């Protein structure tokens, strides 16, 4: 059997470091020893395929049993590709977020803001043949955290992606354009490359916006691509 094609190694500036001093929770949790670089084997290039029969999709976070959540309804849509622009088809995308008041449906979140019985804050999507996904939600609220004095997280939606190989597994956060908290946020800012940071900010999109119903935001996601690709046969 030929060796599997490895994934590209990222430019370190385009990914956050483990040791991010401005983000206090990294202090005791980042590895101090050098990571061991592992050549990609089948262990890294293969990955789980999620059959919607076992993992049913849930594309509308804006209601529970037909009862609408409080807040500003939004549509989020985008495309999942690899670094060469090839679509990831049938990829499972997991999404979770705080409610419109900035509170998570989570027992440990004690922020003094109301829970919404009609907002659970999770979705599960599968990309189509072109790598596209879409879901309906409520614009999340900002919330305070104890990282530093008067610290607030910019509004964001968490995304979890599964690619074709386990080395493509990735969790990230989508932000919203024009959020005044972005320049102050150590999580957003610890990635060195400005362009890489700004790709985490969704764009308002009138084509995704549905008249009389909800604003639309676009968030495209890129997973690692192959470090080498087979020649395409000439016609």
């Amino acid at each position, binding site marked *: 059997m030929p060796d599997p094609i490895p994934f590209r190694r990222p430019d370190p500036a385009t990914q956050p470091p483990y040791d991010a001093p401005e983000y206090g*929770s990294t202090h005791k949790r980042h590895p101090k020893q050098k990571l061991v670089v592992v050549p990609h084997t089948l262990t890294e290039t293969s990955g789980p395929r999620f059959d919607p029969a076992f993992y049913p999709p849930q594309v509308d976070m804006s209601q529970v049993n037909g009862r609408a959540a409080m807040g500003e309804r939004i549509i989020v849509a985008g495309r999942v590709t690899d670094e060469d622009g090839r679509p990831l088809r049938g990829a499972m995308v997991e999404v979770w977020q705080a409610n419109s008041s900035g509170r998570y449906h989570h027992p440990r979140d004690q922020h003094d803001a109301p829970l919404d019985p009609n907002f659970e804050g999770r979705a599960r999507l599968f990309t189509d043949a072109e790598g596209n996904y879409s879901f309906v939600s409520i614009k999340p609220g900002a919330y305070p955290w104890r990282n530093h004095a008067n610290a607030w997280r910019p509004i964001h939606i968490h995304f979890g992606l599964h690619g074709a190989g386990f080395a493509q597994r990735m969790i*990230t956060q989508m932000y919203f354009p024009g959020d005044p908290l972005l320049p102050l946020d150590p999580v957003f800012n610890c990635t060195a490359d400005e362009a890489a940071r700004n790709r985490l900010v969704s764009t308002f999109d009138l084509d995704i916006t549905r008249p009389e119903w909800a604003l639309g935001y676009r968030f495209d996601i890129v997973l690692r691509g192959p*470090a080498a690709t087979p020649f395409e046969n000439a016609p």
Partner: protein
Amino acid sequence: MTRALMTAPIPATASQTAGPYWHMIDFPEWADLLRPGGPNAGVAGERITLTGRITDGDGAPCVDALVEIWQAGPDGAYGAGFHGFGRCASNEDGVFRFTTLKPGAVPGLGNATQAPHIVVTIFARGLMKHVVTRAYFANEALNAADPVLNLVDPARRSTLIAQPEGGGTWRLDIRLQGENETVFLDV
């Protein structure tokens, strides 16, 4: 034939921390890869429990970790006949626990063989990107020639070897930082 593409036309999206409140995507049954009605119901093999405690640089339990595993089936094949993915939330003691089948040996690069192993990844508050390690099985003859174990300083190799606790339970504690820090892999 291949052509090298060293720089990415569109760089991969930056990772961001899963944060402390990720449990809306915790489905506790996913920690049991053999669950009735699940993708592996009825697959034959050696049933095992993989468990361990995750601690930080102060030795404090990491109580909010999202732990995922990825492994081959008992025949050493990925994805064919065995869905080798699981997810588990660490508990208030920092402990994770998976029920699965012991994987077989897996092809390595060239003619190499990899000893049976399970990839263990951790996402958590304070981890801007997940950490990746492997759980190998103590007393496995193939460990001595495993190409990944052999990349690791022999003095630290034990941090990748799960130990038997009887009854099919294998334990691998994970120390994110400090004394006996787990060997994490750059994959």
